[in-house]
């Protein structure tokens, strides 16, 4: 239970912070939303937090993905976006399970078995696969509920590229933070 609370709090805060940063950059410009989908930063925490914290991070991720846009759009927030959020989370779950099933990580497939994502190559695979599923499923759901929206191959491709680019930028950001942390530690060692 304690682990679940720790995971939920970390996941929710991290995902919401990244969403807030992304929405601030996106919606402050004139092309609201369109350019933002080319670098969709929240895909990064979605993949990384699910990969490391597993199924326990899903409720917090869903909450963050629902409350984030709800705070930005207010009353204009359409209800079917919640279903789209579920589909984007499930696309990450599906990508992880496919990687497990493909047995590139372990020889025995088990839904309970976890992949060691310290090997970042698996993480990159998950990012790419989940971006592909997310772009297809989310656009399908949005197109199903809202017939006014133009969904075509270009939009799907834009979402695909945007998710990958966003996740990579998030990873680079984490790496810079990691560098700063390790440098700080080294500084202390030298001072002593």
């Amino acid at each position: 239970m304690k682990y679940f609370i720790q995971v939920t709090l970390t996941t929710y805060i991290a995902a919401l912070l990244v969403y807030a940063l992304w929405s601030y950059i996106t919606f402050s410009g004139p092309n609201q939303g369109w350019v933002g989908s080319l670098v969709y930063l929240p895909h990064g925490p979605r993949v990384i937090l699910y990969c490391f914290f597993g199924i326990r991070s899903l409720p917090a991720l869903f909450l963050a993905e629902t409350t984030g846009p709800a705070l930005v759009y207010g009353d204009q927030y359409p209800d079917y976006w919640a279903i789209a959020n579920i589909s984007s989370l499930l696309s990450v779950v599906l990508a992880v399970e496919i990687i497990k099933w493909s047995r590139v990580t372990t020889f025995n497939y088990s839904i309970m078995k976890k992949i060691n994502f310290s090997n970042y190559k698996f993480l990159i695979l998950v990012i790419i696969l989940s971006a592909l599923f997310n772009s297809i499923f989310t656009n399908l759901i949005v197109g199903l509920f809202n017939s006014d929206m133009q969904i075509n191959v270009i939009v799907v491709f834009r979402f695909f590229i945007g998710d990958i680019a966003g996740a990579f930028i998030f990873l680079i950001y984490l790496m810079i933070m990691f560098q700063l942390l390790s440098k700080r530690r080294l500084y202390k060692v030298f001072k002593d």
Partner: protein
Amino acid sequence: MAEWSIALPWKGSNWVTGSGVRIPVSPPVFYHYKLSVKITLMTSKYIQQLSNILKMLENIDHDLNLVGYNETEKKIFYTIANNIHTNKKCNITNVIESSGFSRSTVYKAIKQFEKQGLVTLIQSKDDKREVYLDLVIA
């Protein structure tokens, strides 16, 4: 009648002075409980996962070769810089003495610094065998 003259008359009895054997008290239960809680907290799954994230970032760092120098090399470079700053000059022997690393480690690191263009080796005018180190300021 017991063969041994000082034997106790029956098993339940004891000497007046008491037995010399002292049975140690059992270890305090609370201490162990606190210790186990501490260990559980330290090795919790949450911390393990956080360290896995850091490990993943470290692996990317390592593979992309973003961290070019290890701690030893950094310390040697710091020693060179410190020596030049305080003594105005620095040779390899100074670095070995100040850093505490072996001659081969220091030589290897200096070779790398020279290759990367961080340090230059200047031959002494008085003694041709002596080589001074100087930092390259870009």
